[in-house]
């Protein structure tokens, strides 16, 4: 049995959870999903639509806010009771915070940042992605999955899993961390170079009011929004979202250029992207010279269709 640990914030599911469920489904054996928190019925119900065996909830006031101690205490008991062969987690900041402690507590190996499941083992990148290693694990273990390695829309749904509260008791006095109210990231903190996917807009977007279209596409893809210089010059997006010679240099897995002609100043900032998709009205636009997939068309027709397809 594979136990997937879901991640959510204030009732909103992190899409990486769906990717991790997809990973578990591809690995084959029955999948159960654990949801931790306080008042998690909504999230649990949402997850029950996935093709999984069971959704286990740990609903406790002590878990209202995330703490590493709280999660370790709760999951330690749950793993002890359910005894899954594998525990899968999305490789998020939150997972990185508690998973090592949990692995130590339950005395299981932890394989991090996996991009694929290979038999009983995993594939994970090494040397900043320059090589990939096949990792073999013996016995019960835990694994985390790189964001974007599996597709959320590849998750099989249509199941009607039972939502079952797991009887776990948490001694709140053992939680040492006292979380402060969450704060917004500093304004300059957008690090586009870390983004797995980027939706980038150029002059073809025509007006600031159309940016939300690109935003919707970015959301549907789990991508960051970025732009070429004219957009940031016009103040439609902050300067720290500018890609190119006077902005950031990025190399995401997927770069979707909307209405970007492909001035060389822009290309030097993104040509290292693994897959480049360009949508531009002008079939002669230089962006098509480096695009892997090009759509010579009106982005105002193409993008809504993409969003509709992605949201299916």
């Amino acid at each position: 049995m594979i136990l997937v640990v879901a991640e959510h914030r204030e009732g909103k599911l992190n899409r990486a959870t769906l990717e991790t469920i997809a990973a578990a489904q591809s690995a084959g054996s029955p999948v159960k999903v654990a949801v931790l928190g306080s008042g998690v019925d909504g999230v649990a119900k949402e997850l029950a639509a996935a093709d999984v065996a069971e959704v286990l909830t740990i609903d406790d006031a002590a878990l209202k806010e995330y703490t590493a101690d709280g999660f370790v205490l709760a999951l330690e008991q749950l793993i002890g009771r359910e005894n899954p062969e594998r525990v899968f987690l999305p490789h998020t900041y939150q997972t990185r915070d508690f998973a090592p402690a949990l692995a130590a507590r339950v005395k299981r190996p932890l394989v991090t940042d996996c991009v694929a499941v290979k038999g009983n083992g995993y594939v994970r990148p090494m040397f900043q992605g320059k090589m990939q290693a096949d990792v073999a694990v013996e016995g019960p273990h835990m694994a985390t999955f790189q964001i974007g390695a599996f597709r959320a829309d590849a998750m099989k749904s249509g199941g009607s899993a039972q939502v079952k509260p797991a009887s776990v008791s948490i001694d709140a006095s053992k939680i040492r961390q006292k979380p402060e109210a969450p704060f917004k990231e500093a304004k300059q903190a957008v690090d586009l170079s870390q983004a797995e996917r980027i939706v980038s807009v150029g002059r073809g977007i025509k007006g600031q009011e159309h940016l939300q279209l690109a935003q919707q596409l970015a959301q549907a893809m789990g991508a960051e929004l970025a732009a070429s210089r004219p957009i940031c010059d016009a103040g439609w997006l902050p300067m720290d979202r500018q890609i190119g010679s006077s902005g950031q240099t990025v190399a995401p897995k997927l770069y979707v250029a909307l209405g970007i002609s492909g001035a060389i100043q822009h290309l030097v900032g993104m040509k290292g992207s693994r897959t480049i998709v360009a949508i531009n009205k002008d079939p002669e636009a230089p962006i098509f010279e480096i695009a892997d997939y090009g759509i010579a068309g009106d982005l105002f027709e193409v993008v809504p269709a993409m969003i509709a397809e992605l949201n299916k």
Partner: protein
Amino acid sequence: MADRETLEVDVLIVGGGPAGMAAALRLAQLQKAKGGEPLAIAVLEKAREVGAHMLSGAVLDPSTLAELIPDFKAKGAPLATEVQRDDIYFLTRTGKFRLPITPPFFQNHGNYIISLNRFVKWLGGLVEAEGIDIFTGFPATEVLFDAATGAEQEARVAGVRTGDRGIDKHGQKKSTFEPGVDIRAKVTIFMDGVRGNLTKSLVRQLGLDENRSPQVYAIGIKELWEVPAGRTEPGRVVHTMGYPLKMEEFGGGFMYSLHDNLVSLGLVTGLDYRDPMFDPHVSFQHLKRHPLVASMLQGASLVRYGAKALPEGGWYTVPRLYAAGALIGGDAAGFMNSARLKGIHLAMRSGMLAAETAFEAIGKGDTSAAALKVYEDRVNASAIRKELYPVRNVHQAFGYGSLAGAMFTGLSLFTGGWWFRDPLPAHGGWTRIEKLTEYYKDARPDSDATVNPVKIDRQLTFDRLTGVHYSGTRHPEDQPSHLIVHDASVCATRCREEYGNPCIRFCPANVYEMVDDGTGRKKLQINASNCVHCKTCDIMDPYQIIDWVPPEGGGGPQYEGM
């Protein structure tokens, strides 16, 4: 906030080009010959490094160099390519006719094809070896004056103020703010290049252009190409006339073959054209598609791009060259021979003469206007006047068309430039541009389109933005625009109607754009960080409301090898 610092020197040279470097070297020589307490000398240069903003064709007449540095060869002057052959072609759209003889003005025997960037870097090394400080990355933004005293009639030039650093795009001080420095000098030598921002303000404030003809400029767009091995003939100089320019337009192309399979290619066009839709950058692309040039560039790759204005007006446009505490030389003074297409040697000559004058004046303790007038007398007695006076009416004659200009130039050889009217009537170049309705009458073109479009194939032809990339231009984005349009409301209304926004065409670097303002109308957008410092907008805008001021120090092109 840090207080403004003041630096006191004896001689301040503003601008580290061939004129400024020659002035600094000459001062060092005079100092050595005289001995005693050395003068404090400083050279200000806005580029990040010496030579980075230098752009020229360039064919160098080594006459001044040989006087200033007789052992220039032993000192390693970068003059690898001596001119071997001169050709002039008259081009039609697809055809070419080689002139059977090369007119004397175009004969380059004994001259060298150089990279002005390399040449000035080399000069800069010699200057620094003399212990003279070259402050790179420091543009001067203001001329400092002291009130007139004693017998002086005019305010006295006391030095310059350098630009502030660390101001954001809204004009607010950033945490890195540093105020500019006041550099005060006994003599300030203004050699800030063609349409230098300080010379421009000095000439205006003191009326130094009184009784002079207005300066007329041209814009040169140049590219450096690396061509397949064996195709070039190093030392070959080709000049073209005719296509892609109209007969009414002044200018021509050049193609110089250097060593290492490099070709220096460019088009110079007069900034006194009539057609408001004229586009120098598009014309240059047409030149590259002409068989004469295209055959050279087949399979070649673009190395660098740049543009710069040239002073074409000649002798009658040279302003008064001195004021109390100040001298003017080089391109800033207009020392360029538009018949020979050369000015580096004249710029260097004026640098030497300015240095000699400043050195003597400081020695005598008199740097008044009367004492510094000696410089103008020296220029008048020098090879500068000897060369420029006979061709004093040449550019103005081109105002009557290329044919008239060419004939007049030839005639000047025999007449010494004399004509029934002397000086020939002269107009500021920007006054000749015609309104769309005058030039095109009823066939008014769409001002957002190009009248004579060229296919951008990204092999031979490129758009402006790609050019900017190849110019190596960099400016920190978060600073105020250094192109000041005093009344941008004119752009979307009057200028659009009357001239169709010529700025979007004459700027070779895509600085000016008319973009939708969201209400279906257009508004001006200034992409200041694209600016290659050519000064064309400051010169050519029909309303004379654009001021080019220096950006934060160090910004601008990187003309390596140009």
